[in-house]
């Protein structure tokens, strides 16, 4: 067991009845990374995250989180890993201050002082009752509570859903300031790919239960080639079988094609190499077959 790997998954499979929610998923997460988990609805993101914290039992494969078996060592694991599910789910009857008190007693690595400090940056007051908070404020409160846990692994399922732009920015700032110390890792599933791309160091892409991409952003820049070209050479570019063709802007110059691996020299000369964006790569690797392949 490599001490630098916080998560090791090998051929993970999860079934809901006859449906395969996860199919032969293998990946690792070293320490000090911010990993984005991307996928359409129903692709298996939430199932994967739940499997990591022992809320779902895999039908096949092996899984080690912080060196522990999530199902067997659930309580020990949750002391060192924190998890935020994808809905605003704080108990409605409680005051935020009550929750701070309860978590202080239940969680050995929770700091009440930190939680109060983080809450001060939000619009939530500790005396507020959860049921009086808006959905966005519940998310902010939950994030503050979880961020006050000194965890080695943060598992967040759509943490910014329901937050406005300013709150999202505050969350990203907190993520960078507090959690990027080289020892912890964060696994974030999100739909807001563009916003979070700059914060990620690695990405995992799920499509219908299968892992279609597991790569660091650094390697992604090297492996995938996006070619920005003029409409006049579109056919020649298409002949090189790109993963995806798309538009980057208006007019005849706003065409682009995405390749897995550099295409031949003559194709490269047809246009200019640009950065493959995560969004476009995501679309390329996870698009539904019913979408027109030559969609412009």
């Amino acid at each position, binding site marked *: 067991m490599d001490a630098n790997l916080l998560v090791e998954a090998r051929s993970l499979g999860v079934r809901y009845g006859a449906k395969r929610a996860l199919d032969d998923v293998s990946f690792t997460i070293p320490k000090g990374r911010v990993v984005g988990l991307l996928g359409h609805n129903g692709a298996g993101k939430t199932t994967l995250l739940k499997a990591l914290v022992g809320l779902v039992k895999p039908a096949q494969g092996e899984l080690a989180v912080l060196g522990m078996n999530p199902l067997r060592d659930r309580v020990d694991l*949750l002391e060192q890993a924190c998890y935020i599910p994808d809905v605003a*789910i*704080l*108990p409605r*009857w409680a005051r935020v201050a009550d929750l701070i*008190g309860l978590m*202080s*007693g*239940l969680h050995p690595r929770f700091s009440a002082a930190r939680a109060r400090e983080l809450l001060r940056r939000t619009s939530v007051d500790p005396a507020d009752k959860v049921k009086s908070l808006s959905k966005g404020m519940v998310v902010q409160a939950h994030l503050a509570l979880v961020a006050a846990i000194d965890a080695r692994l943060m598992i967040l399922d759509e943490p910014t859903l329901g937050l406005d732009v300013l709150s999202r920015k505050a969350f990203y700032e907190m993520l960078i300031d507090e959690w990027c110390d080289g020892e912890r890792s964060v696994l974030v599933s999100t739909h807001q790919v563009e916003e979070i791309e700059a914060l990620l160091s690695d990405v995992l892409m799920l499509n219908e239960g299968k892992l279609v991409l597991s790569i660091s952003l650094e390697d992604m820049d090297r492996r995938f080639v996006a070619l920005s070209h003029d409409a006049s050479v579109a056919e020649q570019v298409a002949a090189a079988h790109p993963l995806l063709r798309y538009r980057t802007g208006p007019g005849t110059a706003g065409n682009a094609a995405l390749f897995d691996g550099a295409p031949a020299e003559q194709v490269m000369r047809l246009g200019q190499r640009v950065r493959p964006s995560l969004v476009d790569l995501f679309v390329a690797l996870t698009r539904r077959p019913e979408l027109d392949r030559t969609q412009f």
Partner: protein
Amino acid sequence: MTTMNRLIPLVQREWLQHRFGWALLVLVPLGLGVLLGSVGHIDLGDEPPRGAMLPLAITAISLLACTAAMFVILWGASLIFASGLARRDHGDRSIEFWLSLPVGHVASIAVPLVVHLIVVPAAALVIGLAAGVLMSALLVTRLVDFGAWLAVPWGDVVPALLAVLGRLVAGIPLATLWLLPLVLLLVLLNAWFKRWGLVVMVAGTVVLVILERTTGIGLASVVADFANHAATSFIGASRTELKASGAEEALAVLRQVPRWAGNDLLAALRDLASPLLAGGLLASAGLFALLIEWRRRGASAAN
């Protein structure tokens, strides 16, 4: 495993979540009682006790009534609440929050059960007794005078009271042991069938009764046995009675109460050494394991 330190916050949670409900259940009947006692019509019957017996009788009845009322209200409410324990955090979906905390499934289910089935009824007895004392003062003062209340033979009444209180408080966990399989079954049925758990249970009971009447398979009687044992574990295991007629006899009886209470408790404890209870506890363990398994799956399956 969840350590002892983690159990205290779990108890704290019950307090934080239910303190207003409990306060309501205590203060409303109390307020009503005080109101009725102060201004309500009191009918002493055809042959009311005379002289010194009257304050004693009123005190005894107040204590009995208040304690019983408080106990029934809080124990009843706790039973109803406990039966829904498995699904209580599913309404506001906060179950996922609780499951994300490093607390074991066993503690998460066992602690609330203990709090609601044992601690709260025990507290109800104490509160009821205190309320009874209050009410007795109110009523005696109203019907006779305050001096008469002070003149009640507290030297004999108090030990008897405390003995009975002790017997009842000790009886609660014993009775709970007998009732455990039934309670856990109800909790489990409510987990599986949501609001229909009780209906299923009642239907099941009816089926058992019919079964017994027709085929003679005594399952319904077994269930009745458990209920019986639970009741006697609470009070009355020794099956000896105390009777009094007249003032002097009443005092003599009062003085016997502590010993009677002690014997009753011993009898209840002896009752525990029963194969029936052993079977019940085994069934309880199985039902508890099913509950744990249900909770373990409770977050992933659609609710």
